């Protein structure tokens, strides 16, 4: 630590960024991809057909559930929305759960391939595939370090306004520094919001002491602050006796949802407001229906819910209001997830996420470049940092591309297909680390960027080769989601290719000689 305040901030910014930089880049990049979680999932399950214009989805779902889920203690109907064409039903007894995806035609069942989908990125960015092993603690600590880096970075960048619009591309070093400053300034509000909201989601894990002392633990405190539905006791139905006549006397859940639909439409204005319908204990006298509203019109993570009797459709007492603390947490959670964002805002948040990821990446590279300029010859620490930079940044891009390619290339009938996609991601990443260790640094950068570029560019062609009908159907039906993901991958591939070629030129021996002469 240096005695001067600004120098202290520079030291803090440098080392808080370096120590956790690779992890932060991973979290930010995968988190950014999860802004398009349903869209990516839809692309990764091309068997899903357009269902959003289908009529009478709820009653058709109930028809199937009445046949298939007679022995269940829970039914669930997930309706498609603006962002996903997935219409699915679920019935479960205890932990035994069955799912079915439905299509627009009567009785049509859709069987999408088993895939980790876009949800892999969402879960990965906060668990790091270490759920149960401290993954959420690690990602929370990373978010805290990022906040430190952001605030200390403000003091580090002395010529805040003078260099505000400067971006020089003629030299790699200058380009990196200017880009890092630009990205840092433009993403200050975004980074502060995303890191603080991310910490707020699991704040009770990071500071559990009050929960442990006053409420007997996190779960007990959560139950106090956000109580579940009170048990419902239907007053006038006869009690069910365990006799052979019990089945015929068992109250049946609704077959026609119209009576509930009408009440929902009176309470919630707007079209297509229902996101999900859950039947709890459908064949019990105390069965009830919980209708979840779409989350488009609220910042809170928890949308409104209405409760009805599963036999009569009569409105029942709903959830007790949650505490202020819970509502604050839910709003922060909602801000973090961005589910309220429409297409335009979602793209803006996505671009800001990419810019933040690039901010972290350029910071790591700048740290190394400055030190290597002063120190010629081999240095173990710089060697390790350099290889971690290559595998952590370019390697992650290769792993992500491999994940998408695996989705298309792995056999459909393979067991644990979703897990296999994740294994491909992780093993590819490890291979990139080994590649970075074995190759000269400049070549490793170029090769890994080139591989991810080629992978991204080839993805649409692999898609067409597998089954051209998917793309044809997407064009005919104007499936913006499918086409958007395809085009975005192609464009990202082109950008990566241009970056790889620019890097190859700028770091070639001849170019460096010319640069040295001009200096």
């Amino acid at each position: 630590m240096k005695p001067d305040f600004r120098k202290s901030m520079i030291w803090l910014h440098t080392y808080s960024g370096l120590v956790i930089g690779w992890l932060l880049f991973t979290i930010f990049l995968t988190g950014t991809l999860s802004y398009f979680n349903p869209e990516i999932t839809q692309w990764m399950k091309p068997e899903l057909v357009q269902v959003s214009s289908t009529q009478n989805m709820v009653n058709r779902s109930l028809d199937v559930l009445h046949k298939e889920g007679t022995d269940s203690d829970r039914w669930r109907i997930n309706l498609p929305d603006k962002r996903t064409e997935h219409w699915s039903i679920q019935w479960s007894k205890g932990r035994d759960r069955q799912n079915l995806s439905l299509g627009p035609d009567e009785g049509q069942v859709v069987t999408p391939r088993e895939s980790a989908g876009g949800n892999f990125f969402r879960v990965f960015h906060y668990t790091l595939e270490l759920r149960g092993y401290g993954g959420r603690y690690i990602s929370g600590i990373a978010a805290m370090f990022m906040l430190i880096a952001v605030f200390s970075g403000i003091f580090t960048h002395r010529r805040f306004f003078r260099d505000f619009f400067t971006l020089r591309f003629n030299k790699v070093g200058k380009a990196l520094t200017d880009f890092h400053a630009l990205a840092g300034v433009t993403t200050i509000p975004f980074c502060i919001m995303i890191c603080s909201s991310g910490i707020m989601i699991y704040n009770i894990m990071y500071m559990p002491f009050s929960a442990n002392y006053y409420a007997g633990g996190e779960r007990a405190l959560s139950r106090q602050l956000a109580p579940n539905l009170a048990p419902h006791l239907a007053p006038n139905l006869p009690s069910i006796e365990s006799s052979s006549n019990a089945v015929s006397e068992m109250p049946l859940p609704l077959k026609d949802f119209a009576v509930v639909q009408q009440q929902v439409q009176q309470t919630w204005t707007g079209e297509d407001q229902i996101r999900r319908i859950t039947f709890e204990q459908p064949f019990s006298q105390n069965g009830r229906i919980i209708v979840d509203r779409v989350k488009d019109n609220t910042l809170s993570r928890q949308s409104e819910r209405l409760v009805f009797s599963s036999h009569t459709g009569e409105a029942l007492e709903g959830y007790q209001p949650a505490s202020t603390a819970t509502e604050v947490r839910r709003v922060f959670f909602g801000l973090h997830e961005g589910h309220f964002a429409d297409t335009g805002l979602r793209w803006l948040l996505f671009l800001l996420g990419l810019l933040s990821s690039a901010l972290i990446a350029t910071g790591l590279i700048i740290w190394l470049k400055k030190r290597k300029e002063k120190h010629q010859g081999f240095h173990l620490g710089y060697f390790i940092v350099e290889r971690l930079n290559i595998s952590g940044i370019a390697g992650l891009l290769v792993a992500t591309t491999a994940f998408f390619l695996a989705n298309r290339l792995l056999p459909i009938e393979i067991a644990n297909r979703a897990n296999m996609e994740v294994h491909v991601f992780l093993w590819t990443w490890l291979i990139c680390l080994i590649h970075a260790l074995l190759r000269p640094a400049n070549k490793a950068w170029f090769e890994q960027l080139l591989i991810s570029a080629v992978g991204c560019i080839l993805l649409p062609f692999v898609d067409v080769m597998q089954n051209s009908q998917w793309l044809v159907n997407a064009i005919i039906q104007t499936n913006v989601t499918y086409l958007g993901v395809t085009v975005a991958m192609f464009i990202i591939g082109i950008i990566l290719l241009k970056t790889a070629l620019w890097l190859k030129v700028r770091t070639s021996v001849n170019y460096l000689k010319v640069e040295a002469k001009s200096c």
Partner: protein
Amino acid sequence: MLISIVLQMFALPCLLLSMDKHFKVVFNTRLTKKARYTFKTIGWSGMFISTLLMLQLSGVEIVYWLAYLSFNIALLISLYTWLFASKNSL
């Protein structure tokens, strides 16, 4: 909100052009004191009014405003670099 964002898009280039080195790159001539003062006044006034208008908006629209601010800055710098600065390397 549209007016607020348009003001941003107008104010940011004014602030860019209020700096000597960027003005020189764009117009190939020196920036006079009067021009600098004018650009700075227009730029900061535009940003101030845009911020005032932003404060009238609802919560989600404020999120939009902040996102657009970051995007407009990045867009302006990218355009400036691509159109002018790369030809006259700084």
